[in-house]
């Protein structure tokens, strides 16, 4: 399937007509926050007022993607989100406890459901077609892509809108910090991989893609294949999964021009990437992406956006110019539970 257009709101300047690659926005501390656009140009201001931050981010990036593709409405809308609408969930939960389950209002409850963003996009476009939401932790976005791939194969859809969305709220950052997920003390996203210690930096984002089976002149890249695997028992098993994924595509690791890995700066988390760097990937050029968007369960949506733009512009951020890029592989895992592989090629 082809990536015809994207819309990406992230902690970097990725939205609208921003140049690629842009200058990296630096962050001090362990929490990266999305740079949000002026929503008034994308969503009816009357609707904006009622929407929480993540709903605005989701809806705006979805609408921008469709606008770039010149597709309204799509034949299917599929979203992936591990956490859903955390802000509304937190508001309703807090008020319910504060007020002893009395005198509550429905807005935050209504908007707390995980399918709110997909539903709002359908509502804005009067889109009656297929609409689905995956909430499967670190593979939520990948499940959405697989769903899209199947819809295209089944002939049920020609243009599928797929997005990966997750937000950080003060409450979620507070709780996740207590699990020891994030680095303590002074930390900069620019030094993320140079300070091998415990923890990573928290991130968030909303990246949408318009996928189609038809090649077109302005498509960014072709997404050849996607797979996930669950709780592998060893690094060797990861290596074997990657090899069989590539064999199924009739290619070997030597055919890969660039590997984008999900290193997040946490020493334990990154061991598998280091292992692969010495084994299967030892001859490949590899770059990382989480210093740009931070770590979150649907960060692979940011990685896909990054890969598509690298292919389209034939520029690897931070690397000297190379021969035309033909194949890019993204390998990411989230907390060693869900691992995913996405193979892209130049159109």
């Amino acid at each position, binding site marked *: 399937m082809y990536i015809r257009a994207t819309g990406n709101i992230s902690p970097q300047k990725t939205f609208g007509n921003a140049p690629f690659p842009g200058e990296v926005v630096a962050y001090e501390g362990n929490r990266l926050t999305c740079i949000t656009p002026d929503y008034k140009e994308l969503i009816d201001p009357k609707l904006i007022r009622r929407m929480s931050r993540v709903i605005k981010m989701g809806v705006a990036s979805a609408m921008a993607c469709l606008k770039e593709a010149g597709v309204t409405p799509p034949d299917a*809308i599929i979203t992936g989100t*591990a*956490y*859903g609408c955390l802000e509304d969930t937190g508001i*309703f*939960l*807090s008020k*319910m*406890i*504060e007020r*002893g*389950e*009395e005198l*509550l*209002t*429905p807005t935050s*409850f*209504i*908007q*707390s*459901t*995980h*399918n*709110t963003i*997909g*539903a*709002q996009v*359908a*509502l804005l*476009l*009067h*889109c*009656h*077609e*297929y*609409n*689905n*939401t*995956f*909430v*499967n*932790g*670190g*593979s*939520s976005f990948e*499940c959405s892509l*697989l*769903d899209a791939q*199947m819809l295209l*194969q*089944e002939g049920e859809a020609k243009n599928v809108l797929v997005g990966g969305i997750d937000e950080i709220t003060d409450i979620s950052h*507070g*709780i996740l910090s*207590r*699990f020891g997920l994030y680095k303590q003390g002074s930390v900069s996203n620019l030094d993320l991989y140079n300070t091998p210690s415990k923890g990573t930096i928290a991130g968030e984002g909303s990246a949408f893609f318009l996928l189609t089976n038809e090649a077109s002149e302005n498509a960014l890249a072709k997404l050849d294949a996607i797979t*996930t695997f*669950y*709780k592998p028992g060893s690094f060797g098993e990861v290596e074997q999964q990657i090899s069989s994924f590539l064999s199924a595509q009739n290619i070997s690791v030597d055919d890969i021009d660039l590997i984008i890995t999900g290193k997040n700066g946490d020493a334990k988390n990154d061991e598998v990437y280091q292992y692969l760097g010495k084994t299967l990937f030892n001859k490949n050029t590899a770059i990382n992406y989480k210093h740009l968007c931070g770590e979150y369960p649907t960060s692979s949506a940011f990685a896909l956006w990054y890969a598509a733009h690298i292919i389209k512009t034939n520029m690897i951020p931070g690397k000297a110019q190379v021969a035309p890029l033909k194949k890019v592989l993204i390998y990411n895992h989230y907390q060693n*539970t869900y691992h995913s592989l996405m193979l892209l090629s130049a159109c």
Partner: protein
Amino acid sequence: MILEHKMSQTVFVAGVGVISGIGNNTAKCLSALENSRAGIDKIRYLDTVHKDTFPVAEVKLSNDELAALSDFAPGISRTAMLSLIAAREALHSAKIENFSSWRTGFISANTVGGMDKTEDFFTQFMANPKAGRLRNVVNHECGKITELVADQLGIKNYVSTISTACSSSANAIMYGARLIKNNILDVVIAGGTDALTRFTLNGFNTLMILDSEYCQPFDANRRGLNLGEGAGYVTLVSERVAASLKTSPYCALSGYCNANDAYHQTASSPDGTGSYMAMQGALKMSSLNPGDIGYINLHGTGTQNNDNSEGTAIKRLFEPHYPKMSSTKSFTGHTLGASAGIEAVFSALSVQQGLIYPNLRFKTRIEDLPFAPETSFTRQPELKHVLSNSFGFGGNCSSLIFSKLQD
């Protein structure tokens, strides 16, 4: 074994499992359906200030009893325990030999994950951000509930979670069937789970759609819905797996469709656009005409809005010949993310055994609708196709069709 109608590739229901307010397994639920025994009662297990106000259909077991029944260690989310009990029954009832030799998946839906435990955590956390036991919030995410259960079942090839409000588990079943048809998996346990929580009870209360009496779906004088809890799963298998079974599958999943009402975040359109499209799409996929459907397991929540909208869509699609129909939510309450899974089990049994379930407490027909739901349990051996509807917030509408197999 030949399917009555032609299809390029068939997905079979080889196993079923359910736990709900009317019973802790399939046999007990079926017995309650046969004997018109509703599971709705005064709140006993959920700790809420509304316990004397709103009747609900709770699973009649405490968390400790559920832990013992499920083999989970005590302290885990009730949602996971309900899920494991029903999913394990669905797996065992399929009697698949050499289960581990097939590519297997677990696709489970839910709407609020481990919210029951998060609520306990949050009370302490709000008083002090350093307080509250982390083990009560570690499984908050919807996907964590699925993982906990998949690990207990030993399913590793593919694990996923869907959340589209009250249609969630219909979409899990659809996705599971498509993973089989696309030759990605051979066996999928698909359905959903939801435990009652204060979050959802209070949320539905703010929408003013909870009935303080026992609900009366599709009745002219209906007042709203009763919430329920539970889990329901079907074991879906490919033709190859079905051929290896010693017993005949329950039925085929012959059609399904997901559409969106695109009318309002929480309300359904007056003409039932989304539900009409979902039912019509499912019929098209199974190459059936409306007249082929013998029974509709209604979404039938008992709210003014749903029953009007769903009823209007049925009128538009089926006029003038209406199948028999009923809402089993009059027994189980509305179990949200689990409802389509539970009702898929009831529908599979309905088409396999020719069973029509009653719509309890129905008295007065809705004026604008030229049909009424069934009021008693009957057997109809000639039943061939059953339609199950599930509609949710966000306009998500999904319909499934289960078809009888010929020996």
